[in-house]
């Protein structure tokens, strides 16, 4: 029987299984062993220190740059470090080791060294953490040659992608979503390959590419749309790099319309890459320009009313869908 786990627990299981399977794996970060959750700010490292010791589950000082840099050095020397950055906003303090060191080491030294480093963190808004704890920075990392970028949205993917990340010989940025840690679902405990999108919902009228919180919103809208005879195909790319454009292109060849939804600001966000690439690949199949529904060009505000305003909600998706699929006018908005 397949287990049902919350995302945080699926991640915890993935870490435990990886630690047990490979003694080169270790975990370090702030507040991993003695914090109120029993393990890290959202509990992901819970009880791991009991099992594997504080040698392999290491509490660090607040020194993001040095922690990631130490991860780079340890990875080069044969370890498989998993670094937890408490909020992905703080990864901005570690951009030199991430971008100038981890991402480039294999290349600069012509393959002599590899950097099998995983940086786990969380992005996303929705729970009032305000401007410096709510950013969705995945596009920054996806733009950097040498990095892999993972955005898990379900417990099964959280488990499977984290196992793959830890096995990967490349530096991987693994960004959880802070508002999804308690989402529950089945977990097969199998690695999930990078670069393979998941068709989360099949449909024929419109392709929606969405990640994390937006995926869940798109699926909710798709369910309501189906009641009105409008069938949305919802695709979760799961990894931004490598990016599975083929699955999206196949879908667009069928639906002839593309909508991309993400939480990061729309401007220069990863939706632009998907829109531009698909427009190139599927020019003859598209009946309309791809549309992006994404965050506003603002920092994330604190007040609930404001935070809700700047992040796309289901109604924003419904409106964008109506623009692309005229027959979809009947989809209920979330209020109705």
């Amino acid at each position: 029987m397949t287990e049902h786990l919350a995302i945080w627990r699926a991640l915890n299981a993935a870490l435990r299984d990886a630690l047990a399977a490979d003694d080169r794996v270790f975990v370090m970060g702030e507040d991993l062993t003695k914090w109120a959750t029993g393990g890290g700010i959202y509990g992901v490292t819970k009880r791991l220190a009991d099992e594997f010791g504080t040698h392999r589950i290491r509490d660090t000082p607040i020194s993001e740059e040095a922690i990631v840099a130490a991860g780079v050095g340890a990875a080069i020397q044969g370890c498989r470090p998993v670094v937890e950055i408490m909020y992905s906003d703080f990864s901005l303090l570690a951009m030199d080791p991430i971008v100038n060191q981890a991402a480039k080491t294999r290349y600069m030294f012509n393959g002599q060294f590899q950097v099998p480093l995983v940086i786990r963190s969380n992005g996303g808004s929705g729970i009032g953490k305000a401007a410096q704890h709510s950013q969705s920075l995945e596009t920054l990392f996806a733009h950097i040659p040498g990095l892999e970028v993972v955005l898990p949205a379900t417990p099964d993917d959280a488990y499977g992608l984290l196992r793959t990340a830890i096995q990967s010989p490349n530096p991987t940025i693994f960004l959880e979503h802070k508002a999804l840690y308690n989402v529950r679902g089945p977990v097969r405990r199998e690695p999930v390959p990078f670069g393979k999108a998941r068709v989360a919902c099949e449909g024929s009228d419109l392709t929606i590419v969405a990640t994390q919180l937006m995926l869940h919103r798109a699926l909710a809208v798709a369910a309501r749309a189906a009641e009105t005879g409008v069938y949305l195909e919802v695709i979760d790319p799961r990894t931004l790099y490598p990016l599975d454009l083929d699955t999206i292109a196949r879908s667009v060849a069928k639906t002839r319309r593309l909508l991309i939804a993400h939480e990061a600001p729309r401007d220069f966000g990863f939706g632009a890459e998907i829109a531009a690439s698909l427009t190139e690949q599927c020019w003859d199949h598209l009946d309309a320009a791809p549309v992006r529904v994404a965050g506003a060009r603002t920092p994330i505000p604190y007040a609930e009313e404001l935070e809700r305003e700047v992040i796309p909600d289901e109604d924003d998706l419904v409106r964008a869908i109506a623009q692309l699929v005229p027959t979809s006018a009947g989809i209920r908005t979330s209020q109705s």
Partner: protein
Amino acid sequence: MVTDFPYPRLGRHALDLMRLIREFESRLAGYAAAGLIRGSTHPGVGMEAVAVGVAIALRTDDTIASTHRGHAHCLAKGAEPGRLLAEIFGRSDGYCGGKGGSMHAGVAPHGILGTNGIVGASIGVATGAALAAQLRGQDNVSVAFFGDGAINQGIFHESLNLAAIWSLPVIYVCENNQYAQSAALRDMVANPDLTARANAYGIPTHAVDGMDVAAVYRAAASAVGRARTGQGPTLLVADTYRFLGHMVGDTEIYRDSAEVDRWRARDPIPRLTAELVERGLMGPDAVETVERAATQLVDQAEEFARRSAAPPVATAYLDVYQPDVHQEAR
């Protein structure tokens, strides 16, 4: 070094401020439970003497840069409790119109350059504010508050070196409350004498009892005097303790209650009260007056904050840039 605390002039003021902060901070867990506060809230109960001892050594045009645990700094530096609480509630009358919240509350007219969600960031911003004062030939000084956790950030190191070589008018105030979230200082540094770090940069430093507002004031006033007269930066390390958890919801599994009790016995508020009574600057009955005044002020603040409207959604798009025309440019 300023030799004594001016009890007659500042004692009662300091006590009132500390009591106000204590009352304000003690209520936050309740507000959070009632759904009035979102995100993370970090109360500073127990640490009042540091905020107050430093702030009363400052002028209004002196600036402070504060941390995630910054309400005390704001109140001590002159923020109105009502508008601060409205900000923490995310309301339109908050100092930042609800955009900032607890971790991003700033009050320009009082030189409060903001609480900050990035551990260590206050140190860099305050250093820059000091540079501005120096460059503009003004004699205002700048204060960076930060915790014992922040001292392990690179920005601490880089900023103190910069301030040292440029003799900037900045006072670095390390609130050493022994913990950074769940991490005990003793586990996170090999040399627990944090003043040794100042020597590395050639910066004068003082360790000070952070549970004694008079001691904090003396050290701060002396550092402010140096800064204001062009003698450069100082690092103050104030030993203190937070009586509550790191943030609302913390179960404090990383420390035992005996330790908390030991520190609670050093509560800075009864200490100052006793001192004022002993010096005849306050009658024993005034103790209750002080408490009542604080309660009343926070009652009023709460009422103000509760009544304040939610911010209009249109404000979400304002003040990303000035003028707001860039929004249209796209």
